[in-house]
């Protein structure tokens, strides 16, 4: 196995260039190094001007998502040696504006996330005082939404989604999956409120089920599945409203 590998890293320095360029760095390639280790080596030893985001380096914080050889990946969970003998190409996440080098602007995602109200909403008058303790759940009730709660907001799904690339108004996979996470929570009463936002054209109906979001998700959240199930329940709701306008 090669003991060194070339990383072709996308650079964008707005003060000196108007488009992205690639810079080659040769880094060690031990078996236990991930892409992020390679970038840290570059930053520490070869070129301190390289900019990128990272934090936990253990697949929890969701900040080190980048495009590795054309695929959206968490760079802390992608081994350098898997790309030997190289070169391995590292670019910023697609479908987001690039601020510098590998750093993308995530404001759009953050605003969309808040829009779907990803928190527990209780009916007015049904809020238990703190002194009465927590709202309890059975393991089966937890299982209903647990998969969707694993999302770490890494935005790989947005980078893989061609719909989001073509129509930036689309709310996108992770935000819808998180809305579904709360809809399926037995403690939550906010499904109707969220439906108002997500039944818009830029909501669930914007999705054409390409399915790439699910394939690239490092946490097996299956946002595509969440969206299709949401569509099904939205369709059932509107049928109900049509046939039983005064309520069931």
């Amino acid at each position, binding site marked *: 196995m090669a003991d060194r590998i070339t990383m072709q890293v996308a650079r964008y320095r*707005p003060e000196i260039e108007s488009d992205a360029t690639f810079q080659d760095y040769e880094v060690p390639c031990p078996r236990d190094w991930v892409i992020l280790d390679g970038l840290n080596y570059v930053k520490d030893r070869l070129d301190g001007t390289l900019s990128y985001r990272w934090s936990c380096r253990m697949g929890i914080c969701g900040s080190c998502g980048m495009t590795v050889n054309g695929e959206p990946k968490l760079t802390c969970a992608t081994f350098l040696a898997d790309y030997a003998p190289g070169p391995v190409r590292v670019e910023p996440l697609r479908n987001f*504006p690039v601020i510098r080098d590998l750093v993308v602007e995530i404001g759009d995602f953050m605003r969309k996330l808040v829009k779907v109200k990803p928190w527990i909403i209780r009916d007015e008058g049904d809020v238990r005082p703190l002194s009465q303790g927590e709202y309890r759940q059975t393991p089966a009730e937890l299982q209903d939404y647990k998969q969707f709660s694993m999302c770490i907001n890494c935005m790989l799904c947005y980078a893989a989604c*061609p719909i989001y690339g073509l129509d930036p108004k689309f709310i996108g996979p992770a935000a819808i999956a998180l809305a579904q996470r709360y809809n399926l929570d037995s403690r939550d009463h906010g499904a109707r409120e969220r439906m108002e936002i997500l039944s818009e054209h830029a909501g669930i109906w914007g999705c054409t*089920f390409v*399915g*790439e979001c*699910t394939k690239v998700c490092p946490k097996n959240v*299956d946002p595509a599945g969440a969206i*299709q199930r949401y569509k*099904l329940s939205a369709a059932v709701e509107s049928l109900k409203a049509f046939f039983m306008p005064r309520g069931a």
Partner: protein
Amino acid sequence: MIDGAGYTPHHPRWLRSHVSTYWWLGRRSYLAFILREVSSVFIAWFVVFLLLLVRALERGPAAYDAFLDWSAHPLVLALNAVTFLFAVLHAITWFNLAPQAMAVRLGAKPVPGWMIAGSNYLAWVAVSALILLLLTGAI
């Protein structure tokens, strides 16, 4: 967060890439998706073809014979052969996606995905067998 902030309206120094018109050629799974979507056009064509057949039947034997002659034209045959391939693709891709779109439960237990997809295939085989029996005059 600033209230009312839109989709990053004016930052001349941010680098924005545009999605190419041919984005669907860039990855095999994107191409498979586009083929699946295009298959709907052929399904729509086959619905029209069947409606024309029903109309010809309703108009009598002469119209039906004319319809048969027209459908034996090499161009129509070729179109229908392609339509058949797309119809198979359409059925298989959507049957395989069904488990992802449906969370079916039997009592407290979720039904496994292969069963949901399998029941679609089973229904497909059953209906095809029924049609085959009707065509061969067995029933």
